[in-house]
């Protein structure tokens, strides 16, 4: 064959095309919203929202409705619950998040069990927990574009006040910002990002996509807006590269392709280490 990288077959495969588009959209949203999650030290909450959305995914499969709305609905519900519990007090936050997470995981355990035993969805666990990016319904593309478009527009419009209240909520209040409403908006955006990545690269790996690129970008950026662009760039590299490597692994290991999520997380981890090395080199140079 004259195409050792298999780029032609990669880009002409319709399952790959859908995967690339939805993966890219999830990457852009997660990279951007992750900036606030890392700054607020909300990693556990961000992870819990992704895990919590799995219960919605499991319920949606059980009811036979579109998985996207199951994931989204549960993530938004959990986000509102977290907003009501008050995520500000750090000591309470850890326990409250843990207990909410336990309850939602219990629910997803039940519905995944019911999915497997009473419907024909034998792969439900794998689908919900690890994602099934090569089996995504192309019809998901338009709702995803719409959701990510709205979310990114809100972030572009509001990133400065959102950064200020993440830095110090009292400064935000003194500047006349509606701090509570902005925090709720942030949580809903976080829920949206968690649900989308749960759907594409799977619930648990969503956490890496949310935190890794943003934490790397925050080390490197010199301007506020740069942190968002860097995070999006790193997230895109990891997701698109991960999809490509997973596709290629089909050729390397005759037939038994390796999971996308493995490659995505591996790339995120490597880029995180690279950013740490780069930042420390920059510091010693100064």
């Amino acid at each position, binding site marked *: 064959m004259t195409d050792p990288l298999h780029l032609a077959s990669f880009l002409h495969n319709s399952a790959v095309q859908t995967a690339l588009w939805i993966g890219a959209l999830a990457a852009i949203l997660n990279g951007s919203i992750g900036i606030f999650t890392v700054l607020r030290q909300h990693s556990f909450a961000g992870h819990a929202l992704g895990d919590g959305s799995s219960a919605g995914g499991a319920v949606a499969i059980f009811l036979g409705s579109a998985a996207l709305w199951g994931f989204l609905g549960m993530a938004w519900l959990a986000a509102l619950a977290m907003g009501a519990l008050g995520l500000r007090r750090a000591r309470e936050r850890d326990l409250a998040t843990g207990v909410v997470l336990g309850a939602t995981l219990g629910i997803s355990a039940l519905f995944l069990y019911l999915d497997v035993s009473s419907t024909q969805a034998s792969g439900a666990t794998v689908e919900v927990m690890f994602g099934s990016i090569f089996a995504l319904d192309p019809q998901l593309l338009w709702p995803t574009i719409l959701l990510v478009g709205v979310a990114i527009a809100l972030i572009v419009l509001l990133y400065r006040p959102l*950064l200020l209240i993440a*830095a110090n909520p009292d400064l935000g209040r003194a*500047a006349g910002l509606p701090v509570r409403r902005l925090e709720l908006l942030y949580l809903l955006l976080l829920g949206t990002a968690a649900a989308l990545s749960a759907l594409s690269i799977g619930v648990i790996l969503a956490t890496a996509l949310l935190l890794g690129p943003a934490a790397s970008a925050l080390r490197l950026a010199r*301007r*506020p807006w740069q942190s968002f662009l860097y995070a999006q760039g790193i997230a895109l590299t990891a997701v698109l590269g991960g999809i490509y490597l997973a596709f290629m692994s089909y050729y390397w290991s005759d037939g038994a392709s390796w999971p996308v999520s493995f490659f995505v997380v591996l790339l995120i981890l490597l880029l995180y280490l690279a950013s740490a090395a780069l930042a420390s080199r920059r510091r010693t140079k100064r």
Partner: protein
Amino acid sequence: MPAFSVSTDPVLEVSNLGVRLGGRQVLQDISFTLKKGSVSALIGENGAGKTTLLRSILGIQTWQKGSIRVLGKTARGQLSQIGYVPQKIAFDPYLPLRTRDLVALGQTGRHWWQRSDTAAVAEALAAVQAESFAEQRVGMLSGGQQQRAVIAHALARRPRLLLLDEPLANLDFASASRLVELLGVLARKQGISVLVTAHDMNPLLPILDHLVYLVGGRAAAGNVAEVVRSDVLNRLYGYPVEVLQHRGRLLVLPENPQQGLEIPCHVHEHLDQHD
């Protein structure tokens, strides 16, 4: 109303303010006024209600009795006239904001997606002498520099009233006296009314016009000579206290430690839980 009469209005007018928090009367019957371009201090120990009073003036804290008027209007909705510097500032080193960006975020009265007013930002940076670290991340600065960055943030909206919560805590003597000098300049040259909370009035005495002395949620207000007197403070504390004067510095002590209070006052301060 003719324009000239506005300047004679007090910048801040607090009358009969009462605040209850979680079933506890935190502030009771507080009244005082601040004039344009004056420096005032809110003196009291931990838990005396200083932060609650500042938050009430900002409109962040709701109150049950009395009124607060800023420039003749009710305090809510007057935020663009007030600059606020919270206590214990410690920005995250990860925060992707340079000092310049933080200052630009202090501007109000414009939409958040509009470009910032660079002239106001430069002016605010110059006022606190922060040009040298304007391009550095705020989280990487020293404590004193972070505080100046936040003061510049507050000045960027060109306020008429500047509130600072315990700005002298955690500063060494040199930085503290530089800050006091800066606050004096802001009041005299720019006509900003400055209100500072503190445990200790002494570092502020050189610039102080006015004093509000808080004990257990009640206050005595006036200039230093009117308030820091044993008869006024006796009534406030509810037990006899003595005012000692030494080379221009003032010290308030319980009158007779053997009879009145068994705990000397410096120990007392340590025992008070920080809230």
